[in-house]
């Protein structure tokens, strides 16, 4: 039985392969102040950043694990590689990426995807962005899309003005860890009134066993600009756990619009503990579209601070947990500006012993006059052992706020199955059609390649 289970895992997860690569630098497992300083030295960083990392490291050691959500006791912080450099520099042509790394991304279809439908794309392998490229027409307009390490080197003032201002290093244990050992991720600046029509994309890949990936993304959308950013991620299947702990900071200035789309499909030996936060200023709009299918444990609650008057925020999420996976996801929206509106649509599917739960915070401070929120959490439970909890926290300090929260739990009933089967659908197909129908309001919002991929995943997962 156990063998069979592992077999299915391998066959169903088509990204479980690993590539033999020669990394140019591997820091031995474990974490100490010395290693933090070593990472900073390798990157030839300014002193302020080294100091920042050390300060964050001390905070990480001091801070306890979260007192809520799934158990993280399985993480052995001493048994993780905190930095692996796969090649010596970031390339901007796929041809220049070392063959064995290129092969990985070819197998994932990334270069193809870039050619077809993206304005620019980046790829991270282990600790570094190995590739970054943007359409020339956009860079001429002043759009910056680079690896975050290059961001620090090439745009030190812009970088320093925003880095760590949205997610402080001492926000939580994992933001502290990321702030200490961060490496890779994207640095994006969209100039005033610049409309980036096609999405920018970054793809993250862990290749080595017991690897820790700590990318950091900083997006600054200047006034009146428009951006859609997509991230995807996969990893090989290993018996030992890996750790992915990212921090994403987004500044959406007056009248700007940012959508950040994630399709998280880590293998089921990855702990995925991510802090994502955006500040929306006057009349700005921020959308998180967050899909979590993979990983062993995910804790992720994308947040939006609606600071500016008339700003808007939306969090749409889909989580699927099977076997013993735990998806503890949700979102936070904090209304502080006047006439701010927000919407949360969260859907979860749990199966076997999986747990897909919603954890959310909705807050309206006294200054948020006439704020409006609508939240809806739907859970589809496919097996008797599966679990889903909805834990919404609502904190309203302003009497003019209008807040609505709906939550429902569904299971597939015999009458739905019979109805579809009587039309000619075999039982398996009927089940996955019902699941797909449930997920459709979120999936249909994804760019086509991802929507197709996610539908395929849902079909496999529900078999």
């Amino acid at each position: 039985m156990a063998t069979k289970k592992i077999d299915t895992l391998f066959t169903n997860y088509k990204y479980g392969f690993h590539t033999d690569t020669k990394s140019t630098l591997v820091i031995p497992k474990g974490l100490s102040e010395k290693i933090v300083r070593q990472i900073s030295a390798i990157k030839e960083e300014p002193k302020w950043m080294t100091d920042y990392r050390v300060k964050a490291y001390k905070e990480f050691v001091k801070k306890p694990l979260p007192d809520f959500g799934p158990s993280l006791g399985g993480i052995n912080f001493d048994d993780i590689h905190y930095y692996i450099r796969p090649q010596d520099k970031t390339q901007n042509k796929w041809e220049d990426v070392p063959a064995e790394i290129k092969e990985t991304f070819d197998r994932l279809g990334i270069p193809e995807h870039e050619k077809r439908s993206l304005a620019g794309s980046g790829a991270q392998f282990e600790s570094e962005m190995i590739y970054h490229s943007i359409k020339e027409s956009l860079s001429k307009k002043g759009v910056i899309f680079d690896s975050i390490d290059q961001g620090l080197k090439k745009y030190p003032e812009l970088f320093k003005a925003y880095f760590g201002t949205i997610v402080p290093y001492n926000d939580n244990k994992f933001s502290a860890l990321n702030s200490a050992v961060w490496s890779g991720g994207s640095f994006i600046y969209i100039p005033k009134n610049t409309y980036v029509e096609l999405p920018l994309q970054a793809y993250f890949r862990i290749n080595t066993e017991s690897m820790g990936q700590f990318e950091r993304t900083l997006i600054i959308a200047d006034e009146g600009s428009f951006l859609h950013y997509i991230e995807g991620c996969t990893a090989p299947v290993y018996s030992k756990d890996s750790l992915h702990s990212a921090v994403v900071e987004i500044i959406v200035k007056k009248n700007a619009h940012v959508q950040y789309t994630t399709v998280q499909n880590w293998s089921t030996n990855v702990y995925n503990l991510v802090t994502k936060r955006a500040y929306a200023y006057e009349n700005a709009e921020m959308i998180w579209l967050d899909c979590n299918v993979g990983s062993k444990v995910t804790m992720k609650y994308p947040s939006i601070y609606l600071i500016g008057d008339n700003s808007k925020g939306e969090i749409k999420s889909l989580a699927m947990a099977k076997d013993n996976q735990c998806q503890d996801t949700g979102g936070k929206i904090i209304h502080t500006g006047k006439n701010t509106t927000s919407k949360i649509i969260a859907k979860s599917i749990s199966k076997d012993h999986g747990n897909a739960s919603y954890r959310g915070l909705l807050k309206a401070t006294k200054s948020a006059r006439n704020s409006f929120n609508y939240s809806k959490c739907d859970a589809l439970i496919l097996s008797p052992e599966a679990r889903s909890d909805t834990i919404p926290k609502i904190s309203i300090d302003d009497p003019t706020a209008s807040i609505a929260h709906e939550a429902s739990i569904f299971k597939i009933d015999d009458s739905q199955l019979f109805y579809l089967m009587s039309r000619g659908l075999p039982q398996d197909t009927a089940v996955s059609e019902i699941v797909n129908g449930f997920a459709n309001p979120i999936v249909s919002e994804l760019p086509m390649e991802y929507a197709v991929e996610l539908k395929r995943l849902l079909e496999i997962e529900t078999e």
Partner: protein
Amino acid sequence: MATKSSKSSLIIKNLHVETEDKTNRQSKKEILKGLDLEIKEGEIHAIMGPNGSGKSTLLNALMGHPNYQISGGTIQLKTGDKTKKLNDLKADERSNLGLFMAFQHPIEVPGLSFLHMLRTIKNLKGTEKQSLEELLEELKIELKKLKIDEKALERGINEGFSGGEKKKLEIFQMKVLKPNFILLDEIDSGLDIDALKIVAENIKEFFKKYSPAIIIVTHYARILKFIEPHKVHILSDGKIIKSGGKSLAHITEKHGYEKN
């Protein structure tokens, strides 16, 4: 549907069907108690009977609903010399043999659109080579005939439709899937007179074109004024107690079931 030299028949012999007793999980309740019926393609039969006589049970058992267990007798499909027993087949297998049921209470499947479902089924069956454009055109023509807004195609199955629209959408699916054995479970209930006329016209049009076998289960003779049955059966307490021509329906409606 290929042209056939001989018509197929659905033959039901001594059918016993039981369901779980809702008040007592341990015990089963027998609803059909030895029912015999034979219907050929090209025939329309009406089944009438009081509440609880087993009309819906019969159709659900014919279609293969897992909650209706056949405890005795047979359901067979006879084509020429070949006979196929349906008793143990699942609903999708029966659908593939040409059976179709229009539900009394159509079921909602949120997020799954009619278009996607019908396309998936047509691709699975693979009998007709039809492009998406051709399929869309066919679907739109049928919707127009049923006076349903074509936006319905993109909406979740039966999600948020009125009772009357749901009934029309059952007939819509029938016309698109082109079955040979059609089971209409109180298709007339909840329809106003205009909707009833539209539904009846579409059934008649389909019958004329494809001559399937149709079983109409109904409480009222009203629909039978629009669709003339070849035979009428009266079902009472799990058995057919009387069969006759179309006049039986009107006599029954006038005098009630007891007088028969």
